[in-house]
């Protein structure tokens, strides 16, 4: 894949950033192996053969890498121009999800659309679309960001509308990510600190209120605060996850030797893949995966830093993507380790899940594109 991308790039533009590319490929490879390990037992029982999820994940990864190589070809100007329309399309998809017979319900959540070959999760796409749109918004409103309305309220309004849609699904994990990424971008874009704090504080207040109103969410929070007191109830998943970490120890039980994946830990190959990594590969494996995500964060911010000089939009997008991927990773890790309440959120690039992997790879493609455009610019200048 890297070869192909590199060959395409060689004709007009500098080579792709190998650090980032290898990092992504490494994460995808670890993810593939761990998804297989975490799902084989359950797949063998439910589907009749143990490689069900492995094969599907292979397809997902191939499609994602092809997508990545296409995205690398798309100039940033195109994204900038089309981002408002893409965002509208994304919102439309979020509405469609809620329409009966069009949206697909799984375990009581309406998060998916059927696209002939498989399910698509619009909220995953929406995260990236928001980053692309917000970067453009920040560039357009550069001069008026200090005003409360343009600085923060427009975006807050946008988030509230989508927030209602996501609450209806419900998909709290995506909602939290959206708010965090959006405010992170506004913060970095130069919104006034007082405005920023006012909205953030009221946002947190609203989150707490929502939690107290909804018993479903409250019980999750309680399960999170005292997992072992409710090991059979709301704390079940978390307790099982914590046990996986404990069993892993320093060096892990060894690949394939997780006990928790044997129907103890629900969603072992999706939202709780990190716990299985911890159990089989140990603290060392956890450290390595965290390092790989930290590399994406640092690299994204470096690319943003470099892009700033010639294209502010690209810089904002790079920052947003760094923020998006690392926040998703951190929140997933936090959920797995009982630091954050349980949310349905995938570990980007690692977890089983077509939309998440596809969007993450597309984001990486954009990041690689920005880097290449920046260096091409630098080369042409010099």
């Amino acid at each position, binding site marked *: 894949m890297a070869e192909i991308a590199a060959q395409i790039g060689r004709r007009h533009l500098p080579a792709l950033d190998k650090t980032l590319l290898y990092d992504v490929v490494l994460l995808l490879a670890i993810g593939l192996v761990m998804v297989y390990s975490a799902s084989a037992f359950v797949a063998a029982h439910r589907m009749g053969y143990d490689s069900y999820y492995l094969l599907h994940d292979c397809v997902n990864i191939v499609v994602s890498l092809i997508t990545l190589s296409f995205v690398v070809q798309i100039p940033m100007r195109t994204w900038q121009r089309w981002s408002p329309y893409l965002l509208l399309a994304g919102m439309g998809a979020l509405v469609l999800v809620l329409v009966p017979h069009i949206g697909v319900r799984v375990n009581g959540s309406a998060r998916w659309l059927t696209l002939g070959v498989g399910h698509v999760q619009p909220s995953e796409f929406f995260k990236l679309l928001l980053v692309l749109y917000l970067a453009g918004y920040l560039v357009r409103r550069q001069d008026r960001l200090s005003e409360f309305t343009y600085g923060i309220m427009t975006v807050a309004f946008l988030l509230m509308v989508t927030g209602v849609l996501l609450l209806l699904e419900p998909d709290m994990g995506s909602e939290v990510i959206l708010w965090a990424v959006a405010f992170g971008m506004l913060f970095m874009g*130069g919104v006034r600190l007082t405005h920023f704090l006012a909205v953030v504080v009221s946002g947190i207040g609203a989150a707490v209120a929502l939690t107290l109103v909804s018993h479903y969410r409250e019980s999750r929070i309680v399960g999170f605060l005292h997992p072992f007191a409710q090991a059979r109830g709301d704390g079940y998943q978390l307790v099982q996850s914590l046990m996986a970490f404990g*069993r892993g120890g320093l060096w892990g039980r060894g690949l394939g030797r997780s006990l928790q994946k044997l129907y103890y830990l629900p969603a072992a190959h999706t939202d709780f893949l990190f716990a299985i990594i911890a159990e089989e590969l140990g603290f060392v494996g956890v450290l390595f995966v*965290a390092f790989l995500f930290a*590399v994406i964060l640092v690299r994204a911010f470096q690319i943003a830093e470099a892009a*700033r000089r010639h294209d502010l939009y690209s810089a904002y997008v790079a920052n947003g993507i760094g923020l998006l991927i690392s926040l998703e990773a951190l929140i997933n890790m936090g959920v797995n*380790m009982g630091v954050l309440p349980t949310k349905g959120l995938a570990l980007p690039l690692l977890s089983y899940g077509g939309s998440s992997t596809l969007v993450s790879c597309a984001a990486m493609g954009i990041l690689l594109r920005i880097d290449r455009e920046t260096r091409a610019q630098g080369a042409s200048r010099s």
Partner: protein
Amino acid sequence: MSMWRRPGRDDARTSPGGGRRRFVQWSLLGVFALMIARAFYLQIIDAPFLSREAGRQAVQMIQEQGHRGMILDRYGRPLAISTPVDSLWGNPQLLLKEPAAWPALAHAIGWTLGQFRRALHAQRHEQFMYLRRDADPRFAKKVLDLRIRGVASQREYRRYYPTGSADATVIGFTNIDDQGQDGIELAYNSWLSPRPGHATVIRDGLGEPIAVHYGHTRPQRGKNLVLTLDQRIQYLAYHALKKAVRYHGARSGSVIVLNPYTGSILALANVPSFNPNTRADLDSVYYRDRAVTDVIEPGSSLKPLTVALDLQTGRVTPHTLVNTSPGYYWVGPDKISDVADFGLIDVNHVIAESSNVGASKIALTTLTRRAMYANFRRLGLGHSTHSGLPGESPGFLAPPGTWEPIQKATLSFGYGISVTPMQLARAYTALANGGILEPISIVHHEKPVKGRRVFSRRVVLEMRRMLEMAASPVGTGATADIVNYRVAGKTGTAHIADATGYHRHEYVASFAGFAPATDPRLVAVVVIRDPTRHGYYGAQCAAPVFREVMTGALRILNIPPDNPETLMAQTAGARGTGHG
């Protein structure tokens, strides 16, 4: 690689908030560090607790039972055996998810699909339901071979008693957990019990076993126990007794057959009994081993023992004369009487006619209270025989200091003392074997324990003649005589006593004796409690049972006859001459 290159200098004009970007980047890296710290805490510091918790839910120590040992008679015939059975069970939670497997499973366990569906639905909140209990292991294997998730089997053992109610009161029974509850099953429980094996089972989150590891202990079968019983004689005794108890409308009865030279129990039958295989009517009324748990006042069947003690003093001989006229006399305010006036008779006839007056007069003149008490104790009366059977009663013999004046007299003919039929039988072994009191045993031992001498050879020979006479047409026990064999024995008929005194119309009929009289090989005691029909005397109720059991037993054991002259012997009719 340029990934760690330092960011360029901030340009405030073109890039607002460069400091903010660095702040965000370092904050996020800080959060990464916090996550790693959390992972370190979970995986290194809290790991022992967490992995122990994980182990607790997934790893389970299970016990696997083995065979309980068999109980065998002296020739190795099985009296109690354990056979493996498999109980099939299912996890409704899992079965509900696999409706495709229902028809095959329902068919395999012999249910209709409708029955199965209803049962499953009724148990849908449970994790466990029996599909079939105590199934033949081959049957269970067929079901398990369907490989349906949520179906498992549990190996158990069922106790079978091939001899049924004939041995039930001696063998006892086990409970559902294979633990002995009564009889030999209880007394030798630890000997018979298997040592359970311990295995570690790893289960998945749905409770299905994934792997089983046997540690150091595999299940170990219990040891077999060989009893002294001879099942052929046991059957004989039980059925003869049952017939008699029914015929006489008696409340209960016991038969004991002993080998006089070893004290080993050849047969021990009680009626009523129970069917240990169905475990129905499990009430102590039915499963009590009355021969050792229930006491009786023996009445006249004790008389030979007191007379033997009299002879032992040397102050009387079998030919010493006693005046029993006019058939009664007074001890203080109490009257001791015979059924008739026997006049001036010798000791031989005191036994043969069963004269209370004669027996008590002799005892009063020859034995002191202390000697009588001590000698009774030496004969094992009033304390346990240590047969090893559970619930054995010690009987009761009051210390001589507490005796009423009349008591010494009544003791000589078997009143005022409570003994178990087993104690009586044991005391008779000394009369049969030449004067040695043998310890009672129910479990077969390679080396029998030595008994101790209680009577001299001379006294024993004199007593044999006397008892032979008592069991002959001359005496009260003629109904016990056996064709071609010479029998020695004594009848007994006693009123039943309880806390309120003696019951006028409730009797214990007994017979104690041995055969062949010239070379005793078997001692037997028959006790019939509270006969209500067809007579109540020992001669009417107990002696015929003795005869039936002894006749069969002598033949079974191929014991040569010792009375060839009576080959043409008359069939002894029930003469009904016995009396207390």
